[in-house]
């Protein structure tokens, strides 16, 4: 007998700790599990970056703790070049995949999306559980590289072949470290694909009565579009990693050309193409940065109306279509990562055009956010502060894009710290700031308690200023030709930049320290924070139309009907009226 979507997950709340909190099929628990996983991952990744920053500014510094963690990679706490690159690789991998891709999409999306569309759970709860545990396995595999004798791989998160494909001869970490890395990414791909599938079906098929597509909250739109992008992108990264693993363990030569001589040893490969790897990887890799930023778009567009007390300019349509345009274009721009890679210079020009065009929808989104502030009534709670921070950072990051989108300018700036600053602004910190905005916004819903506003604001101000100190400086040293991925600055050029690096390091360490304010705030408020009502922010979407935290079936069996879109504010009155989506009022 067919079951309606509502009954699908509402047999009855599971009993017992294991079913309830560990192997739970409840999208809310899974969402929190994802969020916690990313929280752990982000602190791991951050710790790695501290070690790198310290080493760059004070190459002779002994970090005893590091020596304890890896007597091999950092004998006596003095970091070896290979260990620096290992840290760099794992910093990139953990941050890009297990933090930036996981938190805003799988974390909040899992928790909020079904509630926002008025469903009782995801379309496929068991699949949902499977994707979380697969992600966890991937994360464990990634961390396992630190404990194997050879250490983590050193070929960067892009794992360019043949360095990543030829095996241990290429250097320390290129043995089992690289294998585990590949397996970890395979796991992550599978998890993301299952997740994306779940998000799409839930959004299309499990909307409650009246929740037309035009009435979806903008965060739901963000996740929905993002799900499509990841569905296609990860479906290509998966085979790429499989082929890489085949090259490493199966002796094939997909990515390894003939006649390679490493350490005076002829390699037993022939006929492969390193460029094939780059094409496959970046076909995933460029959409990946939008996979990371689209949920951020959605979250900020979702949060802002609540705190500016008016709808976004152009309603849901403009932002949403901008997001769709960005998502679509993201699949035809990958070549701009390969301008100097030996790809035909003609192709370089071909790829540069859509790359520049993609700025148009991005600019439209930014204009919408900025000009929505016009004549608004800003309520500077922490979520809005982080949203504004996101806008500022995204503008700054986007600007860097103009330089890297053109082959001629990129040929000077490619692989300089300008690029590092650029992608930290765009896919790194914009996304993180939006994630923080979402965290401060939804924490009351997730745990039923408010976060401390004073600490939250402090967290914002320090983070905002320090982020600029670190990564704007990186842009600037990039102009001077500072090459990225150097474990020590030995060139005449780089030595001149050590003072700048000292400045960045100090700022980065302070930035790291700031995050402990956040961590403390989370832990303290989780237990001691003031109780949050159902709708502490005066928001309109469905997640605020139920208890905090919501009951097992999200609405306690209530059958909701939605009468209007998420941004119905009585904009003209001097006292701002808001009406929740289920109420007939605001229509």
């Amino acid at each position: 007998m067919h079951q309606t979507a509502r009954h699908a997950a509402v047999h009855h709340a599971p009993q017992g700790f294991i079913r309830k909190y560990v192997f739970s099929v409840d999208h809310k628990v899974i969402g929190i599990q994802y969020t916690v996983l990313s929280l752990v991952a982000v602190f791991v990744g951050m710790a790695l970056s501290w070690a790198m920053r310290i080493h760059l500014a004070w190459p002779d510094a002994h970090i005893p703790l590091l020596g304890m963690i890896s007597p091999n990679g950092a004998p006596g706490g003095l970091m070896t070049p290979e260990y620096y690159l290992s840290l760099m690789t794992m910093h990139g991998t953990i941050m890009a995949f297990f933090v930036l891709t996981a938190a805003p999409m799988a974390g909040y999306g899992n928790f909020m999306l079904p509630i926002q569309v008025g469903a009782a759970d995801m379309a496929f709860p068991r699949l949902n559980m499977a994707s979380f545990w697969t992600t966890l396995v991937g994360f464990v595999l990634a961390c396992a590289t630190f404990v194997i004798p050879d250490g983590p791989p050193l070929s960067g998160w892009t794992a360019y072949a043949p360095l990543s494909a030829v095996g241990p001869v290429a250097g320390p970490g290129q043995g089992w470290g690289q294998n585990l890395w590949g397996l970890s990414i395979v796991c992550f791909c599978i998890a993301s694909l299952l997740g994306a599938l779940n998000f799409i079906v839930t959004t299309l098929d499990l909307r409650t009565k009246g929740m037309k597509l035009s009435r979806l909250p903008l965060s739901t739109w963000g996740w929905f579009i993002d799900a499509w992008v990841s569905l296609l992108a990860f479906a290509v990264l998966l085979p790429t990693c499989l082929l890489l693993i085949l090259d490493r363990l199966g002796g094939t030569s997909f990515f390894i050309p003939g006649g390679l001589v490493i350490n005076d040893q002829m390699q037993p490969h022939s006929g492969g193409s390193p460029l094939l790897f780059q094409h496959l990887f970046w076909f995933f890799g460029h959409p990946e940065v939008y996979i990371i930023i689209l949920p951020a778009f959605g979250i900020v567009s979702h949060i802002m109306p609540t705190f500016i007390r008016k709808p976004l300019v152009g309603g849901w349509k403009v932002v949403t279509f901008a997001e769709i345009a960005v998502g679509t274009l993201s699949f035809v721009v990958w070549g701009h990562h390969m301008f100097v890679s030996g790809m035909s210079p003609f192709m370089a020009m071909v790829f540069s055009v859509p790359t520049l065009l993609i700025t148009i929808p991005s600019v439209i989104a930014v204009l919408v956010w900025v000009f929505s502030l016009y004549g608004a009534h800003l309520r500077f709670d922490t979520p809005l502060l982080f949203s504004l921070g996101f806008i500022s950072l995204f503008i700054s990051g986007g600007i860097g894009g103009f330089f890297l989108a053109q082959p001629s300018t990129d040929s000077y700036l490619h692989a300089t710290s300008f690029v590092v600053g650029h992608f930290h602004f765009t896919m790194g910190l914009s996304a993180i700031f939006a994630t923080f905005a979402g965290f401060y916004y939804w924490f009351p819903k997730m745990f039923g308690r408010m976060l401390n506003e004073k600490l939250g604001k402090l967290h914002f101000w320090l983070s905002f200023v320090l982020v600029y100190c670190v990564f704007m400086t990186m842009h600037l040293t990039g102009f001077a030709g500072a090459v990225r991925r150097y474990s020590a600055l030995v060139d005449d050029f780089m030595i001149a930049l050590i003072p700048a690096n000292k400045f960045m390091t100090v700022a980065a360490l302070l930035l790291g320290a700031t995050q402990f304010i956040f961590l403390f705030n989370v832990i303290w408020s989780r237990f001691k924070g003031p109780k949050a009502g159902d709708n502490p922010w005066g928001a309109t979407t469905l997640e605020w139309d139920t208890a905090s935290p919501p009951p097992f079936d999200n609405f306690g069996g209530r059958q909701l009907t939605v009468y209007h879109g998420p941004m119905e504010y009585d904009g003209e009155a001097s006292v701002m009226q808001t009406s929740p989506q289920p109420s007939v009022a605001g229509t």
Partner: protein
Amino acid sequence: MAGKIFALVVLLITLATAYCVIAHVWWMPVDISVHGPKIDHQIEETVLVAGLLFIAGQLVLAAFAFLYGHGGNRIKQIPGGAKPLIIFAFVLVGTEVVALSSIGAKAWGAVYFEAPDPASLKIDVQAGQFAYYFRYPGPDGKFGALHPDLINEGNQNYFGIDADHDADAKDDIVTAELAIPVDKPILLSLHSKDVGHSFYVRELRVQQDFVPGLNIPIHFTATHTGRFEIVCTQLCGLGHYNMKAYLSVLSQSDFEDWLKKQAAAQ
């Protein structure tokens, strides 16, 4: 209050950034190549265009945060709604995009689409973990064939040339430093013997990856004498940070003397 602080912070950040860029606190080293000015010009164009967008964006954001940061005022909608914004984005950004890509295409084409001067000096460049080696054809103007199986760095046979049996290879001159005559077109053929590397000379405004399995030609002409760093910008392993060589641009006569000295040392 918070709005005012936010506006102030954003303003300061914008000004500081603008100052650093305009005052060239950290900036490109002086260019020494014929094609370089085109790239520099393109970068300055972009700094202007993007810079204006940056300042405008940040300042408008700051202004709104400043103006509407305190309660009580009536909600106002921006006149005209989203249309003007969309039109603005398409027209302004669109024209900038077109302008940049068309001018940029010129600069790029000048570097990559111009055929190398047939009279240019051909030099063979091999990258390997973690050093560059350069090969001059010698008096006969011919490069000897490469035999990867003969590569033995311990005996300094970096290229795997067979000097005993190969007539063309006998007079090849292999060096660890790239010396070129000033004002003479140079044609490099880049190939890697192991993994991906890159050839980056900041002053030359040249950056080109080595792709294993490919021979990638690049050509340029240096206009100033001096000694400059060639560094690797493609992650190639533990020695990446220390993978470099020196480019010395010499007067024609100095270059010939240098080449003689190197030939003697083979």
